[in-house]
């Protein structure tokens, strides 16, 4: 499993997730094929590309919701799709996922949404859980909204609440589908800071689908670029480096907002 990224020949770097020859399809329609890249421990890894190129689909393949048409997904050395159900369950417990549309459970309050993973998977007492819930809500800027139902929140607030739920168990890997979409510039910046902070202080590996250029450059240190027309990846590596050094005009144009 060689890294295609020249920045990471560093021996300290450990591969956390490895994608090998992955092809994704809905029925007979191939969305992307021959994806090969490595997400390292402590990376903030950006999945980018035009709308509809298959970013959400790729995320669903990495988090085990969709089986690849061909190819493998490794978590450290475990091949996810060749593992038994117990190991798969164990691997999944290391994730937190924030879905594109939030996916909060609509019949539960925010506190109940965030408390559910905690009460299912830890031995904490109710008082500690509610303390943790308040703390997570404060981290995403929603302090005091414990008793709200998702339908009583704005779209951006739902996004942040969904982030709080994804962080509930302090997962090793956090997946975000468009974290910044629907947030005002200040909240989006706060979110970027939070993501950086989670990586720096808890060592969380972060995989984010986003096309907000500002946030790609502030937080991302590694990335993959999916192309719609050729239906495969055309670049991987540090986004800043790709912007300045990539030889592929499609990548440069995307990262420069169409200006060469």
């Amino acid at each position, binding site marked *: 499993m060689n890294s295609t990224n020249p920045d990471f020949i560093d021996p300290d770097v450990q591969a956390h997730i490895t994608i090998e020859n992955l092809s994704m399809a809905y029925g007979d329609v191939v969305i992307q094929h021959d994806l090969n890249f490595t997400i390292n421990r402590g990376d903030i890894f950006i999945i980018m590309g035009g709308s509809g190129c298959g970013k959400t689909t790729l995320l669903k393949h990495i988090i085990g919701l969709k089986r690849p048409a061909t190819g493998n997904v490794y978590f450290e050395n475990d091949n996810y799709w060749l593992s038994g159900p117990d190991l798969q369950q164990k691997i999944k417990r290391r994730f937190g996922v924030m879905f594109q549309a939030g996916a909060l*459970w*609509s*019949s539960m*309050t925010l506190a109940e949404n965030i408390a559910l993973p*905690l009460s299912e998977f*830890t*031995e*904490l007492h109710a008082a*500690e859980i509610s*303390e*943790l819930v308040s*703390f*997570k809500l*404060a*981290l*995403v*800027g*929603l*302090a*005091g*909204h414990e*008793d*709200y*139902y*998702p*339908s*009583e929140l704005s779209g951006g607030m739902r996004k942040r609440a969904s982030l709080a739920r994804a*962080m509930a*168990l*302090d997962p*090793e890997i956090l997946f975000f589908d468009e974290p910044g979409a629907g947030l005002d510039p200040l909240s989006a910046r706060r979110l970027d*800071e*939070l993501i950086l*902070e989670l990586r*720096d*202080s*808890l060592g969380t590996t972060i995989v984010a689908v986003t096309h907000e250029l500002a946030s790609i450059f502030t937080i991302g240190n590694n990335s993959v670029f999916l192309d719609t027309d050729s239906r495969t990846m055309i670049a991987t590596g540090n986004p800043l480096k790709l912007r300045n050094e990539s030889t592929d005009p499609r990548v440069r144009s995307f990262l420069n907002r169409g200006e060469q």
Partner: protein
Amino acid sequence: MTAQHNPDFNSMLEFNNPNPVTLNIVLKGSWQLQNVLPPVEPVIRKLSSSLQIERISFSCAASTSWDSRLLIFLSKLIRYCDENRLQVITDGLPAGVRRLLDLAASSPTIKATSQRGNNESLLSRVGSTTQDLVAGAPDALRFLGASLKSVARLVTGKAQYNRAEFFYILQQVGPQALPIVSLISFLVGLILAYMGALQLERFGAQIYIADLVGIAMVREIGSLMTAIIVTGRTGAAYAAELGTMQVNEEIDAFKTLGISPMDYLVMPRLLALVLMMPLLSLYAGLVGIVAGIIISVNVFDLSVYEYYQQTLRALNFTHFAVGMMKGTLYGVLIALAGCLRGIQCGRSAQAVGQATTSAVVTGIISVVIAASVTTVMLQKMGMYEFH
């Protein structure tokens, strides 16, 4: 991150006093979600019992591992200190801990409470449910009014709706329901013929099974059984479809386009049932008669020809007209109940479930009431003589 259970709290939390006014808290071991951790209360008690202490500080062994669990321990402690004017020196904590605590503290607390409270007492719940019921009546009337206006628009050709979708609904409502309608009305016809014939046989009047089964199935029971099946199948489906659209704000999307959800969503569904219910009712009646023939021929030794002739004598146009008219009326009621509950649906998965349940309950209740009222009315109007 292996789960270690460590009930020995002394090894995780130690205290010392570098000077008389400072309490230094030493954190060791693994402060993580999977571990059993020392509670914060003893520390707070220690602080409140000592009058000298003015500040707390921390030291943290390099081997200490931590996650949010440590953060809530600390944030509780810090909150206590802030309330009691004790100084907190966080320098000894890992940098990541300090930054996350700052980030959480910098978020403004909006002490807002949700509109919905569910800690009501039983009595007040009964009260508010009753109130909701009463308050629901004008809503239902308004819905009825809106659907009448929509019918008017449809008749004048001004309503916008999707023809392809209408035919799809028609298909779902009518032909797709045939198997279950056949099964149920066949069995009901069978029971009716058998029970009736047992009584009539005592008078040697088995031949009147044909009258009993024919008139009952065509006029009353065919449409009633069909209505109950269709409430469960189609009324529930209407409520669930429209309810889910409400949850996804799809209905709002129609409204903002200036397309009336009444015209686009409710009318095709209403029309589909109005067209299909009389046909299904008629079909159910005929299947019931077939069941009657089978029982009479096999169990009570009547011939098919006799039974057929007797049925022809028993049934007249009025019976068919009444049966189909009732079917149409039930269709209107089922469609309105299903669509009303769907449109009224709240914005959660639970609300869709409630809407579906209440569509079926409302549907069946209104069908049964309508069945009784029309039967009594027709009899008073003298339309219940059998020949």
